[in-house]
């Protein structure tokens, strides 16, 4: 229980508007995009680093649990108050502090929305590539803490690859900087990268420094349409093998295509077994050449048709559709768990086959999307949470997908994180020694265990 006098102290720091305790407010902070619900005991909204530091001093002095949260678009319950306590929501700490064109970096506060940051950079002809499906919702802070990946991973990598430095507040309330604005920096341990993907269990990020790229001059989006999903999978592996690097390489199966067409009416082919969405970007001449090359390549691998977008608006609509895939499958069933197992790309076709087989055998509806170029599968496991018997089959299906991925050298989670969604599988991938090391790291940062309690390390089987 968070004592009333503690909440009063928080209120004296933040003001009553930024400390919410009504049952209604707490219920609206009990979820993310996973299926579990845990209501916090209070939600607080800091706007400055000193406020965060002040709060953490009080929290550590009184052993109050604090769970950080951004927009709540996570897929693994990483940012839910699983053990109660206070939820620290960063949505109101959302300024872009600096865009440095001379040295191509930017400094942002954690509550900045990724796509809004990208839009702002556009004005300077600069580019921040990480592009999770939820970029229009998710915050930079959330992206850092979850090491968010996304659609451009195949060419540009993930959040980690652009993170230069952080200002963090430790659970004790101490403020500290890691990394900096320099492109190269080997001074000491790379704590920046340790914090990236730490799921909010080590410290709170209050400033984020990211490196930027010049904006690619042009972009084309291709849709390759397949009668057989295997051919689509093989195309992906072949493209990567051939050394062609598209900016995005996404696969969607028939169920996704239908749901998206129902939502957006873009003329996706409803009878195709799979569609590949491929972006190429860069210098106009190169892009034109690559687009032709990839189109021919897809056809040689069995694509029945390849469509090339004709305008920026068309590109945009296709990607809005792709971003909506997770939401759109709610048209099929009320609940969805996004599996996130990732395999070496050469195993992609086999992995997709396996998912389809698991789906049929367990009588569980699974729609497949994938950041295919990364081997990052997103089987969307569809069900109705109210049907307990179905839930059991869902569990079993996910279990089998995880086992399969690990058996071919894959990983539990490519980009969504462990949270509580996958903590029970953690020991299947991480050795006791690795877990012990991680727990020691956690203890160093957070000796009292007050930050995001109940997270992956504690709930690991």
């Amino acid at each position, binding site marked *: 229980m968070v004592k009333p006098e503690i909440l009063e102290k928080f209120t004296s720091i933040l003001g009553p508007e930024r400390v919410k305790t*009504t049952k209604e407010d707490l219920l609206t902070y009990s979820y993310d995009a996973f299926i579990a619900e845990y209501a916090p005991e209070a939600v607080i909204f800091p706007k400055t680093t000193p406020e965060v530091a002040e709060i953490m001093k009080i929290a550590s002095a009184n052993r109050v649990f604090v769970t950080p949260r951004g927009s709540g678009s996570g897929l693994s319950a990483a940012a839910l108050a699983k053990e109660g306590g206070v939820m620290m929501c960063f949505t109101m700490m959302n300024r872009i502090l600096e865009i440095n064109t001379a040295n191509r970096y930017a400094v942002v506060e954690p509550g900045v929305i990724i796509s809004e940051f990208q839009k702002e950079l556009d004005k300077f002809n600069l580019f921040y590539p990480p592009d999770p499906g939820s970029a229009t919702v998710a915050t930079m802070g959330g992206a850092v803490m979850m090491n968010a990946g996304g659609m451009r991973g195949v060419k540009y990598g993930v959040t980690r690859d652009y993170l230069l430095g952080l200002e963090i507040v430790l659970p004790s309330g101490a403020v500290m900087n890691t990394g900096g604005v320099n492109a190269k920096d080997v001074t000491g341990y790379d704590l920046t990268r340790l914090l990236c993907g730490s799921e909010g269990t080590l410290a709170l990020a209050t400033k984020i420094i990211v490196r930027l790229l010049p904006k690619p001059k042009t972009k084309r989006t291709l849709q390759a349409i397949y009668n057989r999903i295997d051919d689509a999978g093989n195309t992906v592996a072949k493209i990567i093998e051939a050394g062609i690097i598209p900016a995005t390489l996404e696969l969607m199966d028939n169920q996704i295509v239908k749901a998206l067409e129902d939502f957006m009416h873009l003329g996706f082919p409803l009878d195709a077994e799979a569609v590949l969405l491929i972006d190429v970007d860069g210098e106009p001449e190169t892009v034109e050449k690559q687009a032709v090359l990839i189109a021919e390549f897809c056809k040689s691998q069995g694509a029945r048709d390849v469509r090339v977008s004709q305008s920026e608006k068309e590109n945009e609509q296709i990607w809005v559709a792709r971003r909506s895939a997770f939401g759109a499958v*709610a048209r099929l069933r009320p609940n969805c768990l996004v599996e996130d197992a990732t395999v070496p790309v050469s195993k992609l076709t086999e992995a997709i086959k396996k998912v389809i087989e698991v789906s049929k055998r367990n009588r569980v509806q699974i729609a497949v999307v994938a950041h295919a170029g990364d081997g990052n599968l997103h089987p969307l496991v569809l069900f109705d949470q109210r049907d307990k018997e179905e839930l059991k089959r869902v569990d079993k299906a996910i279990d089998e997908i995880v086992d399969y991925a690990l058996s071919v050298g894959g990983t539990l989670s490519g980009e969504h994180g462990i949270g509580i969604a996958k903590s029970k599988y953690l020991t299947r991938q991480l050795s006791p020694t690795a877990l012990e090391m991680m727990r020691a790291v956690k203890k160093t940062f957070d000796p009292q265990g007050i930050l995001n309690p109940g997270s992956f390390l504690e709930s690991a089987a």
Partner: protein
Amino acid sequence: MITPELKEEVYNCIKCGLCLTPCPVYKQLLFEGASPRGKVQLIKKILEGKLEATERFHQLLFTCLLCETCTVNCPSGLKVDRLMKAMRAEVLEKFGLPWQKKMLFHLLTGDRLLPFFLFWGRAFQTPVRKLLPKKGKVGTIPYAKFPPLNKKSLRDQYPEVIRVDKPKGRVLYFTGCATNYLFESTGRAVIDVLTRLGIEVIIPKGQMCCGLPVFLAGARQMALKNIQKNLELFNRDDVDAILVDCATCGAALKKEYAHILEEMGENTEAAEKLGKKVLDVSQYLAKFDLGKHLKPITGRVTYHDPCHLLRSQGVKEEPRALLKKIPGLQFVEMAGADVCCGGGGTFQWEHPDVSTGITGNKVKAIKDTGADLVASGCPGCRLQIFGNLGEEPVQVVHPVELVAKALN
């Protein structure tokens, strides 16, 4: 009553959060309870019997513009706005209406609106208006920025049937309260343009307020008489269309009537029949070759999409096309033309801070275009935008007013 289909809607929210950042209210407040996703969660808990409809819930339920941006952006097709509207009706009995709304709705649904207007219409032209404190506001709109009431109601300025020689068509005109009492210039423009095109215009006597402000506040029973009366007057087979110049009235007549009657367990046949024949005046005019009639006018115009026209009725291109047809008039698209102006009927008065933030963005977008005219087919948006433009030398008009000007 919340229908079973509507109840099931709450299970289609997968909590992806794609409704958060497009929501103008959430963008200002940045906490989840202000977002569509948060509200759907609370409604779900209430429908499941796990939460009481509390004062805080009530407050959050009305921290919403009903701009329908969430509904059109929801990938799973959740009818968020219908759910919220139904819930507002559901909690009406428990929380009642604030006295100001009670008074307003009483006027809109009773037979005292005209006498009230006649009294205040005169009073406002006279020194009473000057007695108002200079810095006073209604919500975000300074008194001085309210237009004077029409000296005579529009419907009293015209006969019921406005005849033309050899009519090429015949329409019923639903004038709405705003045009009838406040913006006669819009009504005159609509009638001018239509009669110039050889259309016989009928303004049915006894038409009532569309009732939308009343039923969107949850007071469906109170609005029922308005709905039924309007259905009775406007469901006529001897006309080509029922024309509306106000986005809000159009939304009511085109679709809200049928929804509400259905949810109230009433017969929806008449409402559905009427809905199919209702057109925004810009839609109707799109059928005509206006080009040959129009003379050049000067000005630089930008267009604001009213929520009730764009999202409720799906009308986007027709008003723009009208403006672009006018020779001499420069059309320039503003950034975020489709974003709600922040008015939301009584919202701007109940949440002036939120409203100021949203309208501030709109005003900035307008200034950035360098336009001296904003066209928008909604009197609510018109009041809100003009009321927040400050000293900017920009006029806000109905698109048809510019067409009428170019016709003369």
